[in-house]
């Protein structure tokens, strides 16, 4: 993939785990390869700490959102479609924790 393809095809796309659960967006990419080498994506970065590099609004949102970030190794990516499909569950990779915490509250309401 060229740099443009990486940005269009991966960055800011939805991440879906192997059970079809939405568990974050691609907030940043970890790319390896020096000048002249073919760049290789080694991991997907998810969480507020990854917003720091995403413009001034991103920096502000990152500060408000706290410093957490999850690194998803590229090995865990099963398929890239319009979303990024993982080969493991969100909890195995440490994703979707915000929804897990919120669920404890919502579950208290009858019918949830």
């Amino acid at each position: 993939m060229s740099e443009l393809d990486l940005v269009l095809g991966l960055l800011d796309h939805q991440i879906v785990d192997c059970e079809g659960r939405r568990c974050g967006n691609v907030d940043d990419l970890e790319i390896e390869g020096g000048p002249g080498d073919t760049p290789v994506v080694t991991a997907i970065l998810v969480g507020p700490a990854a917003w720091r590099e995403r413009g001034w609004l991103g920096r502000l949102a990152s500060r408000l959102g706290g410093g957490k970030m999850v690194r998803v190794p590229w090995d865990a990516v099963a398929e890239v479609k319009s979303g990024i499909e993982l080969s493991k569950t969100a909890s195995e990779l440490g994703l979707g924790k915000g929804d897990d915490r919120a669920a404890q509250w919502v579950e208290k309401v009858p019918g949830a």
Partner: protein
Amino acid sequence: VSKIFQVALGILAAIGGFVDIGDIVFNVAAGATFGYQLIWVVAIGVVGIIVYSEMCGRVAAVGKRAVFDAIRERMGFGVGLGALIASEIVNFMTLAAEVGGIAIALQLLSGLPYRALILLAAVVLAVVVWVAPFEWIERIFGYGGLCLLVFAVGALKLHPNWGGFGHGWVPHVPDSGNLLVYGYFVVGLLGAAMTPYEVYFYSSGGIEERWQPADLGLNRANSIIGYGLGGFLSIALMIVSAELFLPEGVDPSTLGTVALGAEIPLGQAGLFLALLGILFAVGGAAIDTCLAGAYNLAQFFGWEWGKYRRPAQAPRFTISWAVLLVLAMAVIMSGIDAVMLTEFAVIFSVVALPLTYIPILLVANDKIYMGRYANGRLANTLGLVYLVVILFVSLTAIPFMILSHMGQG
């Protein structure tokens, strides 16, 4: 047969999604001020919302992506976050205005105190969104909104001036009257017809209903016939207002005056149906805007979302719509005039339009996503023409609002 049934349901949903407090306020005010002269603007607005919701529905069915996924993917985090903040603000203003509209309609029907009815409205909306499946929400409010057809009957009974009506379809600048006020109504009518929450809700709805490429015919029928009928109802409101309020110099600044438009030609039954229609149309729009606010947040941040999940399976999405509803109730309880708030919401939403519609056009064109379902020549031509229209109205909306003193001249 089930296909026809589905089309019928989708059409009803589209009516509910189109005619909301913004359309009611702007169409009636436009009729009372300029008679039939602004019908052409409604027609342009309706074609615009058809073009873009058809694209959104197609992206949902083929690419499995809703509008705010597209906004973030195409605009990036920074600009996308700006678009999110802007759209959440105008969406929230619209939601609060719709909740106020429900309470006004309930008050005219029951005579109970306004603030108690705001509370009742919010509780009923919360229960409906919590309990009812997505499809049923669309159906209940779509069917109820059909009561607005009473305005079409009323319009016929008032024997409109068909010559003037025909002339209204031709874009023109009026010979007399305040041009700044005319401009304000042009911008407001376009904004009311193409309010962004309609596409947020429509595209997320396509995913809620698990549309597939096989449903693209359904998508096209829903958007064309549904929004077309919504435009028909808007024009009926404008005609009634032109016949009743323009000659008398009445400024229809309350929903009660709007309902008179059905009572004068059709009596008590007309009034009752008009209020019921307003209640369901505005109630449906309140749910649309409430869910749209939560869809946008969830899609931007990548949270789990959807009414097809149990509330606890999409917990941040659930909390988002609940909080938006409670805040809207609090804002409207504070005594802000719902009709006034509606005008502000429509005009400010016009400013946010390009950030919503440009990414839709880009994604609907993306061959990697869309393959052979990418935009054809017709969709692209119309999409680009409307982009020019949208850019024009978004740049002129606030100047027209200020210079015309919100249409007061």
